[in-house]
């Protein structure tokens, strides 16, 4: 098996106030993948990124990036890692080009105007290269942060809520940029509140809550394992109970017997076949229906259901 590009073992972080932000986290990231770290507010996503990038001092555990122990050989590791923070933290009075060039130098790279211009062009910032950052819109400032993070050509890129607060159009644009980076071989770890974002782009998904990683899996496997088909059939006449001929299906009555709810199958579409079989069984049993709503569960449904399962009883 390929050596992970980033390996986190037993990582913990307890802040001075006593808050346990990370609790014995183990995580391996594969080279070239897009990994989405999902979790509610305060789950520990930003702390995890901070611990890898040197912004947070871990309380325990070992982080290895590119085979370098971050505690002892942090220079070698950090030189190959880029970070786009959640906050729009920029030097407002600096011009776009100078700010990006500064980032390249800071990470030990020789000046390369052509490369900086290429990055600015790829992020539609070239025309704004001589503008002070304070003159840019929020979305453009976020692009500047991405440009700064790309200036030293990192092999591993952290994107902490990259599309927070940006409009739909720009979000889609950012997704394209992230996909383009992956195609160039950059490994990407992103945290997001937008499950749709993870669903669109990620190869693997990790779910974190209360500082613990609840699950890490390939997106496709997760959908297959935890996905469901949900169908609601509006009945022509209400039923008081399920007839024996359809009792084998995962069904329940709702809306005073006027609706028949099916929840079954998996993320492979098997549930759709079962719904088709159900409709045939209903017709055979003489039960008429006036409509069907059918949908496959999304990553968001899985995410919410996983978090709900993990809720401590009151």
């Amino acid at each position: 098996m390929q050596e992970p590009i980033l390996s986190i073992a037993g990582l913990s972080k307890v802040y001075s106030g006593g808050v346990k932000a990370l609790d014995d986290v183990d995580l391996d990231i594969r080279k070239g993948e897009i990994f989405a770290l999902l979790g509610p507010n305060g789950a520990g996503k930003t702390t995890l990124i901070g611990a890898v990038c040197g912004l947070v001092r871990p309380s325990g555990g070992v982080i290895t990036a590119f085979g370098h122990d971050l505690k002892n050989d942090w220079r070698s590791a950090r030189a190959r890692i880029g970070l786009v923070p959640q906050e729009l933290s920029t030097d407002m009075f600096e011009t776009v080009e100078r700010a990006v060039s500064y980032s390249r130098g800071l990470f030990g790279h020789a000046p390369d105007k052509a490369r900086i211009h290429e990055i600015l062009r790829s992020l539609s910032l070239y025309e704004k290269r001589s503008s002070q950052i304070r003159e840019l819109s929020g979305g453009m400032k976020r692009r500047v942060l991405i440009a700064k993070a790309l200036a030293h050509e990192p092999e591993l890129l952290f994107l902490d809520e990259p599309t927070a607060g940006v409009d739909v159009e720009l979000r889609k644009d950012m997704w394209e940029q992230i996909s383009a980076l992956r195609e160039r071989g950059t490994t990407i770890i992103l945290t997001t509140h937008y499950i749709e974002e993870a669903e669109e782009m990620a190869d693997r998904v990790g779910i974190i809550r209360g500082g613990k990683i609840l699950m890490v899996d390939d997106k496709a496997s997760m959908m297959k394992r935890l996905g469901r088909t949900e169908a609601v059939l509006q009945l022509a006449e209400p039923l008081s109970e399920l007839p024996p001929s359809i009792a084998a299906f995962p069904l329940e009555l709702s809306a005073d017997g006027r609706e028949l709810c099916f929840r079954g199958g998996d993320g492979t579409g098997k549930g759709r076949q079962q719904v088709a079989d159900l409709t045939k069984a209903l017709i055979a049993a003489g039960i008429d229906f006036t409509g069907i709503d059918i949908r496959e569960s999304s990553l968001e449904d899985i995410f919410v259901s996983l978090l709900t399962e993990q809720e401590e009883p009151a």
Partner: protein
Amino acid sequence: MIGFNVRGTWSIYKREVMRSLRTAFQSILSPVLTTSLYFIVFGTVIGARMEPVDGVAYGAFIIPGLLMLTLLGETTSNSSFGIYMPRFTGTIYELLSAPVGVAETLIGFVGAAATKGLILAAIILVTATFFVDYEIKYPLFAALYIMLIAASFSLFGFILGIWADGFEKLGIIPLLILTPLTFLGGTFYSIDDLPEPWNSVALANPIAFLVSGLRWTFYGTSDVPIALSLGLTLGFLAVCTAIIAFIFKTGWRLRE
């Protein structure tokens, strides 16, 4: 394994120097104007009526003190502001996540603050020639001593910028401590001329040793032995360096 990050250091240094140039009026013209006013009032107008001090014309006598006044205030403020602003705006994330350590950070930030201090010192010395006649007895020593002072107080300012959690704290030390101590540290008079107990009180002021040391490099006369002034300055430099090394080791106010 990657060693010292030369390009990273240069990037920090260059950006900090450019920041000073961006605010040239405030950071260079303003202190030069203030010092020129001191020369006009104390050096030319009042100084013309004063007796020479330790054989040095009064206008020339106050040059090292005025130079020290600007040097301490500007290097401390510039260095503290240089590291405080990234903390305040959040841009420090980039510095903390980059392959730069304590050496690169210090040389970059403190070097830039010290450079600005040296440029100011040079401008002030040139400005002084328009108002008073003076000659520097030990120019090489004077240059080295000014560099030492600039580096020491840039380090001190760096500590201040990390310690401060608001703009008020950032300004309080240069304005309320350094400036009064420099005024009372023999800028405008010789401490030897003070009667007891004020002479002993004045010698409790560490800035008096610095002013005296710089005056020795200018005119060969001083209130305290030059070795003591030099020792105190080097000791201050060592203490500031040790504190900064501790800050980086523990991440105090830098890393959570």
